């Protein structure tokens, strides 16, 4: 939470509340390293998954190039997610507020947000997505290294080759499910989310509506400091 504070930017001063910094530049850069490397792995991975999607490898340079870069971009994605773990771990722990919110999640789905209890910087769905990607990337890394150097696994331990295929496919599909929901919610469903991960700021109304406890925390602290 140390990274969030009220921005007093001349560009956004107005009579109707402050712009609040939701994501620092470092968080935004890291998010987009993760996002772009994930999309690369998604396109090339889907190309390897089905002949009907092999054209996705063609648009990023063809099959051999896709095969060459997929594991390296996978490592970039892994590093990026591990960095997220380092900076967001404490924000991502589920709290009692989250559990109350999760019980009322149906109101969230129906856009009846006035019935939801207040929550902190991230909601429980975002936390679930974070942990899905965190544990997912660990499993993808382990199975991916096995697939990368498949011949290094001796014939007598070939069950590891098969396990790696199964884990890589299953976990990749799970992350794709999370990714679809993440992109939908961040771009189409929750207006303001996409701008916040690009420019870092949200309006105070947005913060109050979606993350009231976080809003109170950052405004109180900044006010105290002033």
């Amino acid at each position, binding site marked *: 939470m140390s990274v969030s504070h009220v921005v007093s930017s001349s560009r956004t001063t*107005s*009579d*109707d*509340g402050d712009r609040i910094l939701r994501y620092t530049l470092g968080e935004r850069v890291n998010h987009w390293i993760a996002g772009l490397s994930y999309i690369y792995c998604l396109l090339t991975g889907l*190309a*390897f*998954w*089905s*002949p*009907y999607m*092999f054209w996705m*490898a063609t648009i990023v340079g063809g*099959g*051999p190039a*896709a*095969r*060459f870069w997929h594991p390296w971009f996978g490592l970039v994605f892994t590093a990026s997610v591990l960095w997220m773990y380092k900076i967001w771990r404490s924000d991502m722990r589920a709290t009692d507020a989250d559990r109350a919110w999760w019980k009322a999640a149906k109101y969230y*789905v*129906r*856009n009846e*947000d006035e019935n939801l209890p207040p929550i902190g910087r991230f909601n429980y769905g975002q936390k679930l997505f974070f942990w899905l990607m965190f544990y997912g990337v660990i499993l993808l890394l382990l199975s991916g290294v096995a*697939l990368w150097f*498949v*011949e290094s696994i001796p*014939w007598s331990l*070939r069950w590891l*080759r*098969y*396990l*790696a*295929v*199964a884990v890589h*496919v299953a976990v990749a*599909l799970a992350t*794709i*499910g999370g990714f*679809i*929901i993440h992109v*939908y919610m961040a771009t*189409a*469903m*929750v*207006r*303001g989310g*996409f*701008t916040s991960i690009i420019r870092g700021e949200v*309006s105070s*109304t*947005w913060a109050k*509506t*979606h993350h009231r406890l976080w809003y109170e925390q950052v405004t109180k602290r900044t006010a105290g400091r002033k």
Partner: protein
Amino acid sequence: MSQATLEIRRISGHAGPAPGAGVERAQQVCKLVDTTTCIGCKACEVACLEWNGYTFSETVFDNSYQTMPETAWNYWNLIKFNEHESPDGKLMLLMRKDQCMHCAEPGCLAACPADGAIVQYANGIVDFQQDHCIGCGYCVSGCPFNIPKFNPSTKKMFKCTLCADRVNQGLEPACIKACPTGCLHFGTKDDMTDLAESRAQQLREHFGFEKAGVYDPAGVGGTGVIYVLHDATNPEAYGGLPKNPRIPWVVRLWKGPAKWIGNLAMLGGIIGVTLHYLRFGPKQVEDHRDQKGGQA
């Protein structure tokens, strides 16, 4: 190694059917390896290297006659030696020519994601097309015989072609040509099966090998390389020939039901979020100040 004149029955990673699917015009070709008359001279190994243009590889001493543990990307044909004690206490030096088995249902081809990198010709030969290979190594996981090997400098997979280039010109494979004892035969699958069965019968009836038989595993639809073994109940003794080879179940699941389930799940996810948007729309936060931007 393109064989444009041969019809293609199966193509790896191909969206849609293979042009030659269902073609039955061609005879199935087959190599017969009679392990009971192999003397382990390695002439077949040398002939393979000579024909395909590779040099002899460095050997690894392991206290036996085995020259190297397994085939390599540039060493497609290897005699597997095994000092085997038979149940009645006799020492047998088993020798088996190991190479691609040219399965009727090839696991390498099933696992391969690259369009046209692995093909099965109408005559049954399974061949890698390196110009389409992306070097992913999935064929390594698909093969139940540990045959496809990766060339790290070109990043392509290689294996025995059953001398498709020679067979296409009406010649027998180089290994067959070189065999001095006649333990290697080449012909149609039907002829080779007949020959192998009669040899196995001879071994059972006249040589005291009661368990002699032919190795032509049904789990992969039969193979384009068949063996006569002294003891067909114990193929593992012949340098680890699998008893009941099949395409690994993970690979079958991955390339079969999992593909449908995964594709439907992804499609369902996209349809689901679209329907949500159509039904509930976006969450707009009222922000009088930021009307123009539209995203407050």
